[in-house]
């Protein structure tokens, strides 16, 4: 059972409705290119073969705002506050239309990132910390948050292998450096610092991303197993 506990105001009103969430909410967090997707691909079949129904949810893929957000990011007029709120709209749409129904139906929900990456992005772009925390305060506290922690040196080869530096993953909108690489280094350094600050505050379970993929998967399974509903 995912408890009806929130970081801030329960703006959706789940407590009033006395919502019951027999599922589990499991979050994998970490920077771009750290290997979150590979882990999710290993976890899903493992859970399914053990008889659990699994749902997943991915950032920027909401039915409501996914397409609009993508389009807005391709233009050149998107300001930082608007970007943050567009992301928040996307998140809340996924939260209400994908994550909550799955939890109500007893699914194990695996989310590729949650509010933490969104808050980190906002904070490095100068957002007021109280403001951004209030907005995402409506999110349920997950049953577990796994943070794949790596250093900048770990990220660079992975990003290069995955198609190179992209505009947004390099924080080019922030004008931090003269080219993609310089900007990437500065931006991701700021992002890693924000994640580090969140470890204690949000009770992240830190996993060393330098370990081999199979070993990370073993660690994740080891920690997830006791959280699963019996049967």
């Amino acid at each position, binding site marked *: 059972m995912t408890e009806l506990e929130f970081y801030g105001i329960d703006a959706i009103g789940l407590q009033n409705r006395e919502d019951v969430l027999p599922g589990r909410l499991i979050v994998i967090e970490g920077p771009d290119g750290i290997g979150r997707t590979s882990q999710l691909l290993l976890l899903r079949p493992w859970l399914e073969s053990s008889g659990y129904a699994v749902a997943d949810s991915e950032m920027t893929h909401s039915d409501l705002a996914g397409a609009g957000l993508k389009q807005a990011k391709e233009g050149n007029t998107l300001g930082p506050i608007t970007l943050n709120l567009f992301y928040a*709209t996307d998140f809340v749409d996924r939260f209400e239309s994908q994550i909550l129904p799955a939890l109500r139906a007893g699914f194990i929900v695996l989310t590729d990132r949650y509010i933490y990456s969104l808050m980190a992005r906002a904070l*490095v772009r100068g957002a007021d910390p109280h*403001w951004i925390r*209030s907005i995402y305060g409506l999110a349920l506290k997950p049953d577990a948050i796994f943070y794949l922690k790596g250093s900048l040196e770990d990220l660079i080869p992975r990003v290069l292998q995955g198609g190179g530096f992209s505009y947004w993953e390099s924080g080019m909108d922030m004008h931090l450096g003269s080219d993609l690489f310089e900007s990437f280094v500065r931006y991701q350094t700021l992002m890693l610092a924000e994640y580090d600050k969140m470890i204690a505050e949000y009770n992240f379970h830190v996993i060393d991303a330098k370990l081999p993929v199979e070993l990370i998967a073993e660690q994740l399974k080891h920690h997830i197993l006791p959280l699963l509903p019996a049967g």
Partner: protein
Amino acid sequence: MDGQDMKTYGLHQYPGKLFVVEGVDGSGKSTQIALLRQWLISEGYTVFFSEWNSSPLVKKTTSRGKKKQLLTPTTFSLIHATDFADRTEHDIIPPLKAGAIVLADRYVYTAFARDVARNVDSHWVRELYQFAVQPTRAFYFRVPLDVSLSRILTGRTELKYYEAGMDLGLSNDPHESFKMFQQRIVNEYEAMINEYNLTVMDATLPIPEQQRIMRQLVRPHLEGVRRFRPPVREKELLNLVRALQPTERYSDQSI
């Protein structure tokens, strides 16, 4: 960060001025702000006008959400906040920095009234809009509900789903639902008068009288605001209007 940090409500300092009109549909606020705009322009000020729900960046998402009825009260609130953020970053802050007068037809109080009427938590929605610039003066056009309803509903056969508050399930009849929803919105506005120091306007007064009061209240705030050209004299303005409207066009209008 590097001076790009977000400022919150009440902490923005700009040379320009921001005047806002608020009220339910049918309160006559748009007429009043249009008249105020003409006057300010004729006085030689640079005026920037900004309307609710007008961001080109967000428009498609909002209409998609409304058309497919994808919006919950929370995402309805968020998508409008996103729209308002885009307006703030493009239409409000830069002109205010440039010393212009910005006029806004509906502002954050519209969101507070509508979203809370939709049962969104009132603290949460106020936090959501923390990035907004506090207006120089915000006018609330108060009108008895039966007056605004008859203004809006006369000649209207169809009310839109969200406009009528049908998502709240107050009534299956759109007209009935609209009335109940508007009443909730009015209650929220009334409660905000003290909270946000809104200037109450009696929207049942004749249009010229309301405008006279508005100008009187705006004038003291204009001291020291830069005029970009000298004011146009009333006579010259009339001549200008005549010059721009060839008389033949008028006489031919019946054709």
